[in-house]
């Protein structure tokens, strides 16, 4: 279960049980945890010191137990726009996700519910995608964004909506094809069709396409 690329990870999580669990999980998948801290200030210091490949942080941390982790992540990306950040949250609310996506033009960010850690392989896969500059948004949050059902979305077929949801989660064409058990060509066809219906510019690059979709969903 070694990863293709070993990542140097900095973890910020105030719950000991969870922090230790994450460290163990990442080790198991061959990644190196260069720093594991319990509050946002230490996270910023750890990033200065270790220059990790990716930051994994909780939203709510000491001292205020409000959204210190999220703010630290956004602040870090203001000075290091290329630093990948994966935020783990207990909140489905898209408000937080939107703020994160707006930082550093949305490249190399992830917003996942802590529930997803349990699906360990998918979680580690998401981590790698974010580290590689991709965008990952929790399916639950995407479901909420799609739930707004603004008019153009109603023009999509059910299949196209499924594809759109998976795109918004940051999945590649190949991953979408696997998930829906169809050919990659079929996925490409659905994507072309739905992008046209939503008046979104076609893009070869997976990542730019995801950002366009998210921007559209957030309206």
């Amino acid at each position, binding site marked *: 279960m070694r990863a293709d690329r070993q990542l140097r990870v900095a973890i910020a999580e105030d719950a000991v*049980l969870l922090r230790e669990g994450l460290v163990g999980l990442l080790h198991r998948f061959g990644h190196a945890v260069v720093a594991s801290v319990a509050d946002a200030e230490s996270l910023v210091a750890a990033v200065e010191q270790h220059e990790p490949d990716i930051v994994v942080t909780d939203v709510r941390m000491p001292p205020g137990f409000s959204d210190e982790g999220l703010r630290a992540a956004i602040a870090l990306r203001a000075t290091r726009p290329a630093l990948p950040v994966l935020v783990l949250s207990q909140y489905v*609310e898209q*408000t937080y996700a939107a703020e994160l996506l707006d930082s550093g033009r949305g490249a190399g960010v992830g917003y996942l519910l802590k*529930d997803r850690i*349990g699906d*360990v392989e998918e979680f580690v896969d998401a981590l790698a995608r974010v580290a590689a500059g991709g965008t990952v948004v929790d399916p639950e949050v995407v479901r*909420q964004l799609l*739930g*707004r059902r603004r008019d153009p979305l109603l023009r999509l077929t059910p299949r196209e909506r499924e594809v759109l949801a998976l795109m918004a989660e940051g999945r590649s064409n190949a991953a979408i094809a696997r998930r829906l058990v169809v050919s990659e060509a079929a996925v490409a066809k659905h994507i072309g069709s739905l992008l046209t219906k939503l008046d979104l510019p076609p893009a070869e690059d997976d990542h730019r396409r995801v950002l366009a979709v998210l921007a559209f969903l957030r309206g």
Partner: protein
Amino acid sequence: MTVRTAQEALAQRPLRFLASSWPWRSLAYLFSGVLLGAVTLAVLSVLVSTGLILALGLVGLLLFVPIALSGMVVARFERWRLRLVDIEPALDPHRPPQRPGHRAWLVTRLREQATWRELGYAVVSALALWWIDLAVIFLALYLPVVGMAAPFYLPDLLTALAAVVVGVLLLPISAYPITAWAGARAALTRAVLAPRDAELGERLVEVSASRARLVDAFEVERRRIERDLHDGAQQRLVALTMTLGLARLDLPPESAAADQVGAAHEQAKAALAELRELIRGIHPKVLADRGLPAAVGDVAGRSPVPVEVDIVLPSRLPPPVELTAYFVVCEGLANIAKHSAASRARVRGRLVEDLLVVEVHDDGVGGAEPSAGSGLAGLADRVAVVDGRLFLSSPVGGATQLRVEIPCAQIGSSG
């Protein structure tokens, strides 16, 4: 209708009035008025004349303090006496002194308008009111008493008997002027000696301030519960799903153990999702962190009916106001989803002066009833606690509009 004052008693049917205790109470009121007025006059005369004489030696000036305060004593008796003809008690208009000690008490009393109103009343009572009491009693009872006492001074028995009959017949009539004056005097007494709105107002403010503290206490408690669940159960469940997820990796797929662990994993994830919903219901974190527009935006996003959100506020509002408005919107949108058959809804929020006004519209079938267990009644209670008002317009077959107005000024922004 229950009769509460002598004046109201007068308006009853004559037989009923005469059979009641009101004429007698009125008479007792006037008699005690005469007594109190005479004593007041005597005491005030002594105090004032002694004071004037001693004032030559400056010591007498000190006597003007008890004179100034004498109105309080008279007023206390008057308010106590008032219950004879006015069931509703008249409250003491004086404020509690701000500091303990006789000096602070004296300063408070001398600075109060109520003290001087009472002195004025005592003077008018001593100089005029009790004389009028006396005159009314005398004029009203003169003829009946003279008639009834006839056997004592008339030698002719038959004439005397006739006089007694006339006197007894006149007696009920005399009940009217006595009760009328008693009622008028009671109204005057209440007007002068009962607390003014402003004096009462301070107490009302104090009551609502304590209610606001209670609301804050609930708010703090909700936050505590939310934090406890977040830091405790939620983190443990996340750790549990992680452990189960890792265990699944180690088990040979398709084995019995893998199936069992897989089922446990799914259950733990379901519990986590339920707990997340529960926590959001207790205290929505986005609301605390980002305020009403963001929180309502997220609720709207979860609604199966498309919702347009238009909330523009200049700044964050006090937490109890935000929370109440938030729950109104949640309940409104939940009702729209469940009952309205609407195709779209709209939430609009504005701050008008110090009043937060939030409206939830839909284009559904209407017919929402606060009594029909739709949660609207509970919602109204919740709104009332923050001094707000809830309006509902939901004609059968027409669009439903739920509107909440919450004042933002009085409630402290603590909590």
